[in-house]
């Protein structure tokens, strides 16, 4: 039952905003819808935790420990982002960078985007999964180009074309999947249901499935931002409004990776070898290393953190590629930590850039003086994302690196180098932004930094203590993925 609410609220929210989004209090309503979504998601989670995996709506929706935690995460980050975007967008409007009409578009697509992602997470049908992924892309394309500046248009165009192509390849993969499935399950509706496929995965045709996986990996991998399919990501993150960057980085990438993982489970079952795992490890490692070196060259703060997202998604992909319960557990943990931390960072960065009126890091100095909360938020967020304990990102990196050293020692030198370079690059650029003398004025609006510290607080807590039910939940998911 909750599931319909879960989908209904954001989608209706989208329509509502499309109609009345020009209202003065639209931001509040936006936040309200997100809050409702979060509430329902919490209810759903509660049920899953006690009743275990279930299929709803005669098999159209399937909710297990894996996707339900992503649903909660999505709803949560969506809500906090809505909170953050409330004052942020106001200020943008006052600066005259956005018109009311644009805000209406923004709010409406925001809700639809959330709805699409939840659909993608909860659906049981690989085809619908594809449809909703595409939908999420379409919903965000116009958000990326919201400012209508040449740069933002360019970014949006690249985003659209590259992800469009990628997603098209994913469709071909889905077709192949269906092609293989219908011979086992017979043609018709059920042949794309993941639960069904999962049941018969050992009988599926290996040759077809490995082709299918290549297409799915390249397709959804484009949205995950795996090197070398990542080219759209930094542009889109840098040019879109900051709340959008936050949800792109924090949520969309996860959902795309979720799609890959769903297919991987099937393919592993069908092939019985770890071809899929090796591919993912390769992509992951490549992404980590290349992203680390690219970070070193950045001058635009949002762009830099976009690359850091690529790096972390690479790390997660690598972890999932390694397989095994510990690695999968670490991967899931890292997903969560990255979403929370990275969105928090984007919040602070948003305020910082708004204050400085530029995204060039060289022009942002001494935040800790002008606005200590922003300064400390950015500093702590950065430290957290760089994998320094006691923040949770370290917990997952700890597990990933030690496991890698144990299972695939050859990969560790690359990780060592990449992490070192990334640390040097990011921290070396953030430190002068936070510390030192400054020329910036104080901010007229009180920035909404509660989300930041809520996120960082959670990350800190999860680094030191993971509540038992949460842990159990992760374990089930890890079992599911790592076999």
């Amino acid at each position, binding site marked *: 039952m909750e599931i319909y609410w879960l989908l209904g609220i954001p989608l209706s929210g989208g329509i509502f905003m499309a109609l009345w989004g020009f209202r003065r209090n639209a931001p509040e309503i936006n936040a309200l819808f997100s809050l409702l979504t979060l509430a329902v998601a919490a209810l759903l989670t509660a049920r899953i935790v006690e009743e275990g995996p279930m299929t709803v709506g005669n098999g159209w929706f399937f909710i297990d420990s894996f996707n339900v935690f992503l649903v909660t995460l999505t709803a949560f980050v969506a809500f906090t982002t809505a909170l953050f975007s409330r004052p942020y967008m106001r200020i943008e409007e006052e600066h005259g960078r956005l018109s009311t009409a644009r805000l209406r578009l923004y709010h409406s697509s925001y809700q639809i985007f959330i709805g699409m992602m939840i659909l993608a997470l909860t659906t049981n049908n690989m085809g619908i999964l594809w449809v909703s992924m595409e939908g999420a892309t379409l919903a965000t394309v116009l958000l990326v180009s919201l400012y209508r500046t040449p740069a933002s248009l360019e970014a949006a165009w*690249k985003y659209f*074309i*590259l992800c469009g192509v*990628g997603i098209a*390849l994913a469709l071909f993969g889905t077709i192949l999947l269906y092609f293989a499935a219908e011979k086992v399950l017979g043609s018709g509706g059920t042949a794309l249901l993941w639960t069904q496929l999962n049941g018969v995965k050992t009988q599926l045709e290996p040759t077809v499935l*490995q*082709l299918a*996986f*290549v297409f799915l*990996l*390249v397709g959804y991998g*484009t949205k995950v931002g795996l090197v*070398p*399919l990542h*080219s*759209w990501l*930094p542009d889109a993150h840098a040019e879109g409004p900051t709340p959008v960057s936050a949800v792109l980085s924090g949520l969309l990438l996860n959902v795309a990776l979720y799609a890959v993982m769903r297919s991987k489970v099937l393919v592993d079952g069908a092939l019985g070898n770890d*071809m899929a795992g090796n*591919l993912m490890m390769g992509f992951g490692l490549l992404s980590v290393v*290349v992203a680390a*070196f*690219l*970070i*070193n*060259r950045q001058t635009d703060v949002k762009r830099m953190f976009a690359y850091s997202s690529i790096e972390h998604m690479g790390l997660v992909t690598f972890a999932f590629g390694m397989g095994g319960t*510990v690695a999968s557990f670490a991967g899931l943990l890292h997903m969560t930590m990255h979403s929370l931390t990275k969105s928090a960072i984007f919040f602070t960065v948003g305020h910082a850039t708004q204050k400085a009126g530029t995204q060039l890091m060289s022009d942002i100095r001494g935040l*800790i003086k002008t606005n200590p909360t922003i300064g400390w938020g950015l500093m702590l967020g950065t430290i957290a994302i*760089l994998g320094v*304990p*006691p923040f949770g990102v*370290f*917990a997952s*990196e*700890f*597990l990933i*690196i*030690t*496991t890698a*050293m*144990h*299972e695939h020692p050859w990969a*560790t030198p690359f990780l*060592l180098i990449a*992490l*070192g*370079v990334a640390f*040097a690059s990011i*921290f*070396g650029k953030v*430190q*002068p932004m936070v*510390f*030192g003398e400054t020329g910036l004025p104080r901010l007229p609006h009180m920035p909404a930094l509660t989300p930041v510290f809520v996120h960082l607080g959670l990350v800190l807590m999860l*680094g*030191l203590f*993971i509540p*038992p039910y949460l*842990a159990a939940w*992760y*374990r089930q998911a890890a079992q599911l993925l790592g076999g």
Partner: protein
Amino acid sequence: MSVLADLDAHILDLAWAGVLYWLALGFSALLLQRWRGALVHLVFPLSALGGLFIAAVGVAGLVLPASAMVLPIGLPDLPFHLRLDALSAFFLVLLGSAAFGITVYAAGYFHSMKAGPLALVGLWYHLFLAGMATVMLADDAYAFMVAWEVMALSSYFLVTTDHDVPEIRRAGFLYLLVAHVGAVSLLLTFGVLQGGHGAYTFDYMRHSEITPFWASAAYLLALFGFGAKAGLVPLHVWLPEAHPAAPSPVSALMSGVMLKTAVYGLLRVTFDLLDLRIGWWGTLTLALGLVTALYGVIFAAVQSDMKRLLAWSSIENIGILIAAFGLTLIFYTEGKGALAALSLTAMLYHAINHAFFKSLLFIGTGSVLHATGERRMGRLGGLIRFMPWTAWLTLIGALAIAGLPPLNGFVSEWLLLQAFLLTPGLTQPYLNMVIPVAAASVALAAALAAYVMVKYFGVIFLGRPRDPALEHAREANWPERLGMLWLAAGCVALGLFPAQVIAWIAPVVRQLTGQALANDGNWLLLAPLAAERASYAPLIFLAVVLVVLLFTFIWVRRVYHGRVRHADPWDCGYPEQNARTQDSAEGFGQPIRHIFVSFMRVERETPDPFDRHPHYRGDSRDKLWLLLYKPIADLVGWLSAQAGRLQHGRIQWYLTYSFVTLIVLLVFVSR
């Protein structure tokens, strides 16, 4: 009361309580940021008491059997494991006793600091203390790494306390970077040691077998990781930058205590977690240690900034520690248990000695800095007349670190040299060649240390004030003096009662090498192996010196008059002499620079004969920076430039990437 009744059951709870106490003080400091008085007069004194408490727990822990506990925090399958055995206990004593003096001092030092920053300092300072204590208590990889990084992080924030200065920001960045890279390599060490499926407890590692190859890998990674923290050449570059940048009590903690956590970790991994040790590790480590020692002391001799000088001297002492560690490994793998015990004792002894005298020197320097606001030794001088307390107490530290009897520095040096000296023929001939050379370099380092300390004390406290403003230098306040007094007393006590100290270290040595150092002498005679081979009795020594001194003094006074006439110093016929004609710090280091110039990049501004206001600046920098680090930085820059080419804006190219990736993968799978 029941706690005291069965202490061995509760000792670990007490230790953990001490850690929590520090944490609590840290956060209360954050809450008290409105009340400066409370911060200065309450928080810091209280945390000093915490130091004493931790030290006491450590002393008890040395004699009690090892005890372990599990905390309800950490990762799901990996809660924090704590364990208190002799090794941890020893380092807890080191931490606690040094921290007591330093924190008492800090209460005076931060007296004039503004409330806001002071609250932050209070927070990080106590996180730092708690982190170090937890490092020594941790009994699983995760807890260890968390504590390790908390320690690094909090000290980073302490280093960057006044972050307006670009150099300090740079120093902090360099420090955290090296610390992080080191931490990752420690992660890899534990990655090797862990048993898969999340078996990360030290207890598991202790009982697991491992192939020689992987053991060596683990050891080298550990050496790299801990070396980065300890400032082992060539990973030392951050140290001379970061230690001076911090407020003096923090510098004292970093040099005196934090560096020892690296030593602790090295001991823990090598002698506790690894189940086999290989000979060449020892030789390698010994060599590295000696290089570090000499490198450090040579650069210490040419420094002109007093805190930087002390930082370099810390590198030297770490080098000696690591060398002793390597020697222990050699003896241990050669099956010479007694000698291993001897050199390990020397190492631990030197560790705690260094904790005391280096902290003392750093805080003494801090008082000078407070009184004069000047870090360049070339602008100081003659302070013994205006700050007698600071001067005389610092002198004790200086003599101790110079390894002069009867103070503590001499004892550890003596033990180490004995370890070298009493080597019977080792099985590998090349080791027999190594030992004398090693002994020679240790002796050389010690002698140079004396040079450095004469420079340090002489230039700062003796002679004529090089700047008239120094006449108004204010003596250190009472808490500061108290802190210095404690540490100085420690130096003297450790120097005068070696037999007791060694008996007290014995449990640690026995735990690690399976054999303790038998003192063949009595309570005042220290005889490590056999009385007729070597012995040393500082108390008698001191007594005789004092007797002779007293006798001479009385005799001179009795037999002759004590008339004294005060006059100007003799100008040797050059009436132009003034305070500026004394040796500057550079001047005093000049002979050393002259000899070892090949290690340094010397930058000099020398005045030309027609300058109205002649001005000289000399600076000798570390060549390794150019030879090792800059190339790495350039390489990274180049690589990222190459990576940057991927991203050149043309959507057609981006599409091509996807296209090619697809084709390649298809080819790959359809084989």
